[in-house]
């Protein structure tokens, strides 16, 4: 019996998963805040508490995400692309097999193409701009003075199609302000914001190619308004897991399990100076 841990330190939230024999024992999510390391430790303590396990039972830890190098109790790291793909394939153990994964995070959007055996064959990430990420909706919700859950609900009640033309989060703010001053309904503005994110990520999907089945994860996948906007944009139904925000952490935990069984070190090239 061995417990493995996956930690996904994202720009907005840190996620930690405790697994044993391919079963999730505990999953914790918390805002990353200013200290990635401190948050990771707090999440581990919380996960051990809720699963009634001791830290001595942990055999391997793999971290992923932006702050993966800052997790001082991790034995190894893995990129979020591979961790996300691993987690999505494992969570979706059914037909039809996943071929495209869309992960919208707080700061990054990723589209991953996987083959029949679950291997990553291509991926695309957004550029530096926060348009097409969770941050875009966060900024917009502040301007509309509603929280993110409410923004999603409002968007589902939209009756009129408005356009947010800008591809930049900062400029989009002023477009939203203009729509408000024109007296447009907040429901319609909310829906247009979701469509803007879907359209932006749709561009990324086009670079790797859309193949069904399409899996949608990351915190913003909890937003039903965004799911609807994506389904309309892509013209396909999305598979959304119950806890979309922990998929990458699950993948990291599975990678930890792989490391235990294979004992194969990650290939790394250290360049010696000529």
């Amino acid at each position: 019996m061995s417990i493995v841990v996956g930690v996904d330190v994202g720009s907005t939230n840190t996620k930690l998963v405790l697994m044993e024999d391919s079963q999730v024992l505990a999953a914790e999510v918390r805002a990353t805040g200013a200290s990635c390391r401190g948050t990771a430790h707090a999440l581990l303590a919380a996960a051990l508490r809720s699963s009634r396990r001791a830290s001595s039972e942990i055999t391997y830890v793999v971290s992923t995400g932006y702050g993966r190098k800052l997790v001082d109790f991790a034995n190894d790291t893995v990129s979020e692309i591979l961790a996300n793909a691993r987690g999505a394939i494992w969570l979706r153990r059914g037909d039809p097999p996943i071929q495209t994964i869309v992960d919208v995070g707080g700061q990054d959007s990723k589209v991953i193409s996987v083959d029949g055996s679950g291997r990553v064959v291509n991926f695309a990430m957004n550029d530096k701009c926060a348009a097409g990420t969770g941050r875009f909706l966060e900024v917009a919700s502040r301007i509309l003075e509603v929280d993110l859950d409410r923004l999603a609900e409002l968007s589902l009640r939209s009756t009129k199609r408005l356009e947010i033309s800008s591809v930049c989060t900062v400029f989009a703010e002023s477009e939203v302000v203009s729509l408000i001053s024109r007296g447009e309904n907040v429901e319609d503005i909310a829906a247009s914001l979701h469509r803007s994110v879907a359209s932006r990520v749709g561009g990324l999907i086009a670079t790797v190619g859309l193949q069904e089945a399409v899996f949608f994860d990351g915190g913003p996948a909890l937003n039903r308004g965004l799911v609807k906007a994506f389904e309309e944009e892509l013209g396909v139904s999305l598979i959304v897991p119950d806890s979309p925000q922990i998929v990458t952490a699950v993948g990291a935990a599975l990678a930890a399990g792989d490391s235990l069984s294979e004992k194969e070190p990650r290939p790394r090239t250290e360049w010696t100076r000529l």
Partner: protein
Amino acid sequence: MSSPSMATLIQRRVSSEETPSAHAEMDYFRSRLRLPEIRDWLRQEKEKGRKVFGLMCWSVPVEMVLASGGVPVRLSGVSENDAHRGWNFPRDLCPLTASCVTDVQALTREALLDAVVLPGTCDWKRKIPDLLGGVKVLTLGDPSSGSLRFADADLKRLAKEVALITDIPVVTRNLARASERVAKANEAYLALQHIRRRPRSALSGQDALAIEQAFLRDDVARWTEHCRYLVQSLKGESPAPEQRPGDRPARILLIGSPVVWKPRSVVHLIEEAGGQVVCEDFHSRLALLYPAEPFARAAGTNGSSLARRWSRTCFCSCAAEEDDGLVFRAIHDFAVEGLIGHVYRTCARTQMRLPGILRRARDNGISTLALETEGTASEADRLRARIEPFVEMLLSKRRNGA
């Protein structure tokens, strides 16, 4: 540190039984990227009464400067690692241009530059004169392959302007001699590139970048000699046997906006992540690798042959289909596993050209990654988040025999 003369260098090697050392040669190339060494070299040349011309990129026909007795020095990438620091530049200035301007400022402060030669291949290069203050600027047009007659006229004008500064006219014999020197440098460069085709090349992309950027930061003949010596020493090295397919770094072709030498460049980040940049095309080098107009022939007396070579050296002036051809040829010749397209946010020409090349590469089954950068050190983490999974994916594909 003053550089030894060519004769001393050759004599030392002939008289001693010195074993070729790649390490020692790389120390030479790295030293040429440091401003104090460049200043010392230029001071020595100025003391001999020679005029110094700063050149912004490979596509400037260096032969013209050499033929009139001038000293060409490459600009960009030595005076500041973070090119924007300390200067009140426009916010959207491209890092290459910013770096070029800071180098000009650093050299003119000590009166080490007599003129700057700028190709007009992009908007920023055409605007640089406004940022350079009182430095004499010689400009060239855009050497598009469809306007050879204009390119020829442009070169003749440059020859006259250079001669006005050096007081040595560009005559046929001098031009032929200068072209021969550049042709030899290109031969040494090609021999070095050939070594990078090996399955396990000892030459990292970082080393290759240092070697390339050291060109025109010392005497052309001395750089060529060091390059040849490095090739000789690398040929003598036998690569370590491969244990598993994943042991070898992923072979990457890097194309797009030119990378300015600095410790955390895109090249460094790729190699930290387990990749190896085995070939690169930063606007010009693939055209140098596969020259449409051989350098030796350009050494001929005909100015038009130089114009032909010049007009095809730069990515900015090549036709898109010609550029594609070079990229696919390099992918094949260097057994490339992944193609990374790097573009500065403000480099409009590359912004427009790159997506098409990457799309066509993907259509041909090549894994690609697009990186948009601003050329600052602070973006390293963001770039790593993209480069590391890309390299991991390439290695995973190789392990799985994909």
